[in-house]
Each structure stands twice: as structure tokens, then as C-alpha cells.
């Protein structure tokens, strides 16, 4: 991988958090991203090894496999090699999206917990799930109670916003993953108007459209990974 490759998910720190208020297994998502990231070099290693062997087999050197069958094999392998590299790119994209989701959720969770801590110090009751506790009804009996009610109302908004933002980042990640899935899905499961039907993940599909809908893509193209 070149210098433009994204950093591995393990090197991206999650914001600190102690509870599980926004939902989801944030550490589990990061572990999954790391796991997926590890599959990329393993995948390209196999492709590279086979590419080398296929090249030796069909070389122009004396004793190399030549003729129409050799040409057919070379063309067939060439497609496979690119498909393998493209699959590695897809796995890398899923890793990035999953890792990005973990980071985003950790930041929201961290912000919510920080706000909850501040609100609690001003007398706001925080429930085990992070929600603000029940508020007394009626006008405040004192200025101190009025201030507490203001803090509670403010935290209520923070809590709602955090939940909404967590839902939004999940939705974005799900949409990105769905976009990737559309590139590798079997033809009968692809949405209408999508890429052309084929039994295989094909080179042109994954190279030209595999990155559609995925932002912050900085990784190398499959061709670069394959050294082609």
C-alpha cells in the first residue's frame, strides 16, 4: 500500500466513554473494522502470488505455455486478478465505513456523557440509560430550582440531539454499506437501474462504480494493489 492509504482502524482512537447510551457495540465495531482491514493484505497477497505464477506459466520464454488455450487462460486470469483486487478494495471500504461509524458513535457518546456529567453537577438526575430524570411539575419554588430546571431542559435537548445524531450516522453508514453491497450483490438482488447483470463481480463494475457513495476514499485502486 502506498502512502495515500488510509490509516488502519487500530490507529484511530475512539473518544473515551464509559456507558452505552447512544446504542451499539462501539468497541465491537472498531474491532470488526480492524479485522476487515487485516483481510485486505491477505487477499492481495493471494492475488499477487497467483498473478506471478500465471505470468510465469504463460510467459513468452521458451517452454512457456502458448497458443489459444494459453491466451484464453491468461485473459481469464486477468479478469480474476482484477476481481480479486477489487474485492480487496470492497473489504477495505467496509472496514473504513465500520471504523468511521465506531469513531463517530464514540464522539457522540463522549459528548453526551460529558454533558450529562455537567448537568448532574447542577442537580439534574441522570437515568441509567442517560436520559434526564423526571422533572418536577409546576413553577420552581426557588431560583436554585429554576436553574436546575433550566439545566434539565438543556440536557434533555442534548440527549435528544445525541440520539438523533447517532441514528443519523448509523443511517449514513448503512446507506454506504448498502451501496457497496449493490456492487457485489448477485444480479438478482441488485436494484433496478444498477450495474449491469453478471454472474461475477466484474472488473469494470468494481473499478468504476465500487466507490460510488463512499466518501473519504483515499486507498489505492485495485490496479495499484495488484501492481498492474
Amino acid at each position, binding site marked *: 500500500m502506498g502512502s495515500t492509504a488510509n490509516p488502519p482502524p487500530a490507529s484511530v482512537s475512539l473518544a473515551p466513554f464509559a456507558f452505552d447510551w447512544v446504542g451499539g457495540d462501539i468497541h465491537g465495531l472498531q474491532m470488526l473494522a480492524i479485522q476487515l482491514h487485516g483481510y485486505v493484505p491477505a487477499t492481495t497477497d493471494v492475488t499477487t502470488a497467483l498473478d506471478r505464477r500465471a505470468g510465469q506459466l504463460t510467459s513468452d520464454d521458451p517452454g512457456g505455455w502458448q497458443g489459444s488455450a494459453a491466451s484464453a487462460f491468461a485473459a481469464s486470469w486477468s479478469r480474476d486478478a482484477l476481481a480479486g483486487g477489487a474485492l480487496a478494495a470492497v473489504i477495505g471500504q467496509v472496514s473504513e465505513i465500520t471504523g468511521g461509524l465506531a469513531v463517530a458513535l464514540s464522539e457522540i457518546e463522549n459528548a453526551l456523557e460529558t454533558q450529562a456529567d455537567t448537568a448532574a453537577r447542577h442537580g439534574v438526575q441522570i437515568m441509567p440509560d442517560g436520559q434526564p430524570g423526571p422533572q418536577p411539575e409546576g413553577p420552581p419554588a426557588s431560583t436554585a430550582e429554576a436553574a436546575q430546571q433550566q439545566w434539565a431542559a438543556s440536557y434533555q435537548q442534548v440527549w435528544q440531539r445525541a440520539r438523533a445524531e447517532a441514528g443519523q450516522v448509523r443511517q449514513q453508514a448503512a446507506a454506504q454499506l448498502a451501496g457497496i*453491497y449493490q456492487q457485489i450483490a448477485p444480479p438478482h438482488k441488485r436494484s433496478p437501474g444498477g450495474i449491469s447483470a453478471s454472474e461475477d463481480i466484474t472488473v469494470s463494475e468494481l473499478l468504476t462504480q465500487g466507490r460510488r457513495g463512499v466518501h473519504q476514499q483515499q486507498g489505492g485502486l485495485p490496479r495499484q494493489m495488484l501492481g498492474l
Partner: protein
Amino acid sequence: MSDGFQVIMTDLQQAAGVFRTEAGTFAAIMPATGPVSVDGGGAEINDALSWCWRRSVACTRSWPRSSVATRTNWRPPTAPTGTPKTPLLR
């Protein structure tokens, strides 16, 4: 020698072995049991993760698809049958 048969059989057999081995390695890279235990925090994200995982695994299991040498039933071409047992020329 006819077109398509300019090949050293041992090389082809070795290459076929390499392809089978590497195809097995490729298929084993991603475990079939995916991120079902990882909760993204919602059904939509969980479904999307699951789809991507399962499809990626399926792709690794069927790759490389179009290389003849990786087919389990593939064997290098054998000598034509009916070869005279006694050489015609001594």
C-alpha cells in the same frame, strides 16, 4: 505440434496445484461466521453489515471463478488415445 499444446505438462500441473492451494487460502481468509455478534445499534446498520460480510465471504469462496486451472475436476490434457503401442519409427 498443434496450437494450444505447446505446454510443458509438469508446469501446468504445478500451476494448477498453486491455484488450488491459493484458492483455498483465499476462501479461508474470511470466516463464514460474520459480524452477527457486533451490534451496530440498529436493524438497518446490522443488516447492511451482515449483507456485506456474507457477500464478501461468498465472493472469496467462489474466486477465482473463470480460471480453468482452479476447477477441482480440471486435469491437464492427456496424450491422445489410440497411440500405437509400437513406435512407427525405430
